């Protein structure tokens, strides 16, 4: 390695590779407008893994698809949203321009490895397709590179398996192949949308280890999406907790698990079996994530929140800092803790007004 004064390039580099600001993605149906992602902001720095965690229906996957530019009608990214990748504003790109960002810029691994490979082409064919489009590698060289990639993701007998079809791979092997296919694009940024959910626990751990290794080797930035707090604890550096289209708490991973502030985050942590559980037995959160089909003029968690009070029904909570040492914010009317209830409500109201004024 280089000299001691030259610090780890990832540590000193605080310039985010991806900045999402005020992202709003809505789906228009005949009956209602579903605000699947409702004004969220977060960033991902180079070489870092940022997690998004939440129950199904919280808008995690729509966030990922928005970044990839995969939102189809009747969905739409609303004006005022901003997704900046390496300084380039993605929301303004045409479809053709987006194509140059996908693959070589941002790659994505989907939840179900069963379905994310095309069943009628060999695994090798699909990896070579990535190589050709993004790196212009073809022919014999592509075969060699594809073999190396399969080996890199831990598939034994790689050369032979290139000629096999996806259905001849087991679930775990298939997800490895998908990861290899994405690595073939040589992306700077990888979005993993529940990549281990369809796999059993041992395979899941192997895939997570694989991602960590690859990240270290290639200085990859990863956005990792899951509903599983245990997985988040394992892989993420920083975490965004999502609920009904909004981020309700943001914190570095240790801080989040040590000092969860938002009642929803607490409930999520309590529902993990094993070491992180702070209570005896297993807690579940009653009810379901509501469909966010109304403007956010209240706390969407209120119906399920054990701490809800009157103001929660008509004041939209804003992100406020909840820690002195860490970059830790929560959107809940219980904070900042040192203020009285009426002062807190007032603070959130004025923050909300500033925000809307800023928009117009």
């Amino acid at each position, binding site marked *: 390695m280089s000299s001691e004064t030259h610090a780890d390039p990832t540590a000193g580099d605080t310039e985010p590779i991806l900045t999402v600001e005020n992202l709003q993605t809505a789906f228009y149906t005949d009956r209602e407008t579903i605000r699947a992602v409702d004004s969220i902001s977060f960033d991902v720095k180079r070489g870092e893994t940022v997690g998004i965690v939440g129950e199904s229906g919280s808008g995690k996957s729509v966030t990922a698809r928005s970044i990839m530019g995969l939102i189809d009608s009747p969905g739409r990214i609303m004006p005022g949203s901003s997704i900046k990748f390496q300084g380039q504003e993605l929301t303004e790109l045409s479809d053709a321009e987006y194509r*140059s960002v996908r693959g070589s810029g941002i790659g*994505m691994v989907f939840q179900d490895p069963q379905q994310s490979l*095309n069943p*009628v082409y060999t695994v090798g064919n699909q990896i070579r397709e990535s190589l050709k489009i*993004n790196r212009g590698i073809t022919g014999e060289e592509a075969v060699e590179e594809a073999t190396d990639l399969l080996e890199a993701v831990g598939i034994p007998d790689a050369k032979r398996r290139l000629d096999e079809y996806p259905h001849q791979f087991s679930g775990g092997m298939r997800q490895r192949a998908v990861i290899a296919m994405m690595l073939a694009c040589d992306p700077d940024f990888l979005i993993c949308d529940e990549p281990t959910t369809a796999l059993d626990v041992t395979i899941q751990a192997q895939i997570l280890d694989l991602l960590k290794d690859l990240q270290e080797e290639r200085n990859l930035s990863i956005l990792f999406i899951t509903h599983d707090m245990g997985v988040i604890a394992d892989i993420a550096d920083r975490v965004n907790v999502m609920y009904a289209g909004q981020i309700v708490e943001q914190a570095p991973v240790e801080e989040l698990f040590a000092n969860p502030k938002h009642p929803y985050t607490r409930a999520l942590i309590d529902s993990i079996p094993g070491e992180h559980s702070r209570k005896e037995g297993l807690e579940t959160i009653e009810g379901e994530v509501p469909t966010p089909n109304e403007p956010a003029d209240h706390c969407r968690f209120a119906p399920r929140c054990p701490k809800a009070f009157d103001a929660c029904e008509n004041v939209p909570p804003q992100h406020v800092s909840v820690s002195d040492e860490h970059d830790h914010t929560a959107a809940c009317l219980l904070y900042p803790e040192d203020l009285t209830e009426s002062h807190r409500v007032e603070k959130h109201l004025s923050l909300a007004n500033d925000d809307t004024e800023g928009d117009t």
Partner: protein
Amino acid sequence: MNRGLYLIKRLLLAVPVMLFGLTLSFLILYLGPIDPVGTILGRQATPEDIRQLRIQLNIIYPNGEPVPLWDQYLRVMWDLFTLEFGQSWTVQRQTPVIDLIVGRMPATIWLGFWSVLIALFVGIPLGLYAGLRANTYRDYFASGFGIIWRAMPNFWLAVILAGLITAGGALDWYKDFIVTTTVTGTPDVLNNLFTLYHVFEGIPLLEALAIPVPNLIPMAIAFKWILPAALVLGSSSMGNEVRIGRTAVLESINSKYVDTAKSKGVSGRKIIYKHVGRNAIIPLLPVIMGEFYLLIGGSVLVEQVFGINGLGNLFFRSILGPDIPLVMALVFIFVIIQVTVNIVQDLLYTYIDPRISLEDTQ
């Protein structure tokens, strides 16, 4: 299992299928109330003529004893499988069956060829188009077109169309459109579609080979003549192809592997051709192959309505006869076609869809 071995196995398995089909036809014909002798000889036949003919048709032995059914059955089957098709009884007395069939073949092949092709080249693109533009007005237009074609039964459509284009009908200009053609009956141009060039003259063995070169003008005339009948015969297949093609494209385009391909940066055009196209063909294959079945049944009707002298028409007349050698020979050919189509379909599956292995298709 390799494909050669599989093919041999399938061919062997086809034998019982053929036996069953032919036996069934034999039983229906021979157990039914038939009197070929009466039909052939007419009312004025002398008892001696009748006796002679019965012996000749293998219904009685020369000593007057009736030939048992199983004996007749074995004789008929043996003849068929040794390709001895015999002579026609009633349709064209004493003409070899094989000559009759060969003579009628061109019209039916021409009809079948175009009905498959038109359905294929209109139905599939239209279905794919509708799928790619799902839930737009263009889609509704294309799907509506498919549903209408699918919904019109061919016996009805045949009569209506024939009525419209014959004299006095709303479309009777069709007869004189570009070139004057008949709209019913079988034109002579069918025998003139190709010119054979014997290029290997004087070279032993190859001498018999000739290169057919299409004659464009007779082809065009023959096409115009067959178009209405081919449209009718292919109508329901065309509708089916629109419908299935649309669904197949929609299913594929919304699949995760298309999202994944997009995430790799694959261009929209390539996604359609490579990733959607190949997958959408899979559910279309049985529809396409199914056209051949429809052809066999449909040609009987369509040829009757449009007065085409083809195999379907021949089949119909041979059953009315009854002209048993002719019926059995035609059934024999039809069963062979069906069995072949089945085998081809299963083999094609293994090429198009790698998830299907030869072991599963049996």
